[in-house]
């Protein structure tokens, strides 16, 4: 601990000799008094006026908060409040997180106990700690913090409450409320921190987008096709994309009016999508420049469903393979490249036949590769648009496609558009 820094700060605030302050602080710290307590005690001793005087924590505008401050007092409006359980030094602790604001700016907070404020309240937070979180100051409300309700409303130029559209959610968001349709949901058993737990996972959507979600405390209202209001959810990052987390603290309410789910996915260049590090639902266009090994008529392990070669599964040894159709196509637009994975149905429509047709063709040619060759002859060179979820890891980018279709934009129109953009031609 940098006692010097604290002593410096105190000495200049109190207008007394630094060495004296430092001696007092060190004396208290010897007894393992927390630094915040020690500083308050020293303040009082040096004419801090028994609290409430000049030497109480600085009262600041939110915009003036920096990570250099230790303790502050702010008068703010509560914008959002989310509840979450975390495991801290082996103990489950319920914390509240969200954002405060005054007319100068916003700041996030973490409260280690329930102070009773709610979004919309105007409050004065006394003696809040300041810590750094991702380069920004964040308020820490603990044992030594006081919260007083203000009767005068703090005017703020920000929306109050956690209501958001799905497209506006970002990893790190807390205390959000969304109205969504449950696109798909399944029950899963996971090994949680307290042993086996049932959870729900799936996809939710609204007019602005679709995102994956997890419900850690299954709510019966969450059923496929139902529209629900999810209050007090938080957002984490999953494969580079936001993922919505519903917890024991969330409120789930069925909605009478159904929520419409958007049909479209954002389009971007493959280079940008790969740089983004993963996207839950994205549309990518490019040329198929190659069909990779492991395409066409393949065999899967009956135990784990993984693709196998020569009747041998990496986990299950010699197995009786189950036939399937799959395509792994390299899609490349000149800015980036990814492997598009097409399941049986999409592969069948490209191949122009089903699994039985593929087996017949393989038998006739006495070579299973003919199926992949036919698929490559159909795809390679042409421009396609693929939609699905993109994951990126050290081995490359994979798009699990829900849809895959030829680009049908007229090239003459594309050429005219480009010329217009350049300001040349008609």
């Amino acid at each position, binding site marked *: 601990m940098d006692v010097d820094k604290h002593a410096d700060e105190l000495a200049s605030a109190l207008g007394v000799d630094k060495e004296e302050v430092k001696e007092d602080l060190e004396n208290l710290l010897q007894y393992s008094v927390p630094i915040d307590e020690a500083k308050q005690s020293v303040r009082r001793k040096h004419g801090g006026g028994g609290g409430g005087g000049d030497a109480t924590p600085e009262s600041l505008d939110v915009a003036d908060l920096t990570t250099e401050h230790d303790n502050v007092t702010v008068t703010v409006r509560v914008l959002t409040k989310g509840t979450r359980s975390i495991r801290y030094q082996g103990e489950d602790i319920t914390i509240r997180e969200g954002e405060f604001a005054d007319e100068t700016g916003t700041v996030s907070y973490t409260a280690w106990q329930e102070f009773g404020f709610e979004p919309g309240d105007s409050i004065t937070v006394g003696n809040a700690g300041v810590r750094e979180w991702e380069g920004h100051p964040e308020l820490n409300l603990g044992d030594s913090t006081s919260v007083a309700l203000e009767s005068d409303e703090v005017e703020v130029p920000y929306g109050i409450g956690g209501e958001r559209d799905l497209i506006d959610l970002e990893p790190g968001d807390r205390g959000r409320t969304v109205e969504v349709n449950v696109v798909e949901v399944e029950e899963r058993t996971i090994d949680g921190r307290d042993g086996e737990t049932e959870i729900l996972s799936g996809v939710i959507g609204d007019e602005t987008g679709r995102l994956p979600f997890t419900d850690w405390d299954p709510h019966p209202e969450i059923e496929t096709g139902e529209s629900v209001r999810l209050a007090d959810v938080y957002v984490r990052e999953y494969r580079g994309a936001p993922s919505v987390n519903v917890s024991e603290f969330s409120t789930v309410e069925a909605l009478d009016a159904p929520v419409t789910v958007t049909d479209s996915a954002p389009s971007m260049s493959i*280079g940008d999508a*790969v*740089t983004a*590090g993963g996207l839950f639902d994205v549309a990518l266009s490019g*040329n198929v*420049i*190659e069909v990779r090994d492991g395409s066409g008529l393949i065999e899967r392990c009956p135990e784990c469903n993984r693709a196998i070669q020569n009747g041998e599964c990496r986990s299950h040894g010699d197995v009786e393979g189950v036939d399937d159709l799959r395509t792994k196509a*390299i899609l*490349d*637009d*000149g*800015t*980036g*490249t*990814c492997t598009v994975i097409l399941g049986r149905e999409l592969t069948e429509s490209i191949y122009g036949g089903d699994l039985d047709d593929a087996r017949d063709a393989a038998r006739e040619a006495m070579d299973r590769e003919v199926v992949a060759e036919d698929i*490559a*002859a159909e795809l*390679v*060179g*042409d*421009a396609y648009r693929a939609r699905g979820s993109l994951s*990126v*890891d*050290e*081995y*490359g*980018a994979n798009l699990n496609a829900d849809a895959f279709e030829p*680009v049908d*934009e*007229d*090239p*003459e129109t*594309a*050429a*005219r558009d*480009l*010329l217009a953009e*350049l300001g*040349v*031609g*008609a």
Partner: protein
Amino acid sequence: MSADGGPGNREVARRLFAAEFDDASLSYSESDEERAPNYVVTPTGARVNRLFAVGVLTEVEQVNEDSLRGRVVDPTGAFVTYAGQYQPDEHAFLNRTEPPTFVALSGKARTFEPEDSDRVFTSVRPESINEVDADTRDRWVVSAAERTLYRIAIFAEALDSGLRGDDLRAAFETTSVDPSLAAGIPKAIEHYGTGTAYLEAVRELAVEAVEQVAGERDAVGALEAEPGEGGPSN
């Protein structure tokens, strides 16, 4: 890891016109390692390991017992590709395909300098060739023009900046410029001394190719400028 590292090390298939690829004479490897990727750097700074071209297969020729040579022609010139015994599928394709046919070609960029020549030739070692239609060719022309115009714009800014070599590369790293261009442009300036006259000629070539797809022109003019014309003195 290749120099542009990042997630997924598969080389992006670059789009560029045949006339510019034909002007390329520089190739290099990032390291002496056998598996290190080899790059051809073009006069406008495209750093090409893999390329993708769509054009008309105009000729297939037997060059020796094992190898076939195909010419894939775009609106500006020809890509030459050799398929030998290590490219059995591509060899078979060239063998059975009757020119003229629209084809899509992807493969590795190569340079070679015949012993009795002081000229450097470029070629493509094919990874895939397939028959496509006229629309696919026209779409490729538009995308090759887009990538080329983007490259030229970045190149022109680099010339203006006055920075060269490692300084230029370092300056690029602070921007969102494609890492492969950030590596290719400083090398192109050093090797070709590429100047504004050449940039302007390639720009004109790209625009004319797009005009042809738009139905506004019958033919694309030849690329006659030399890379070093109007270049920075060095």
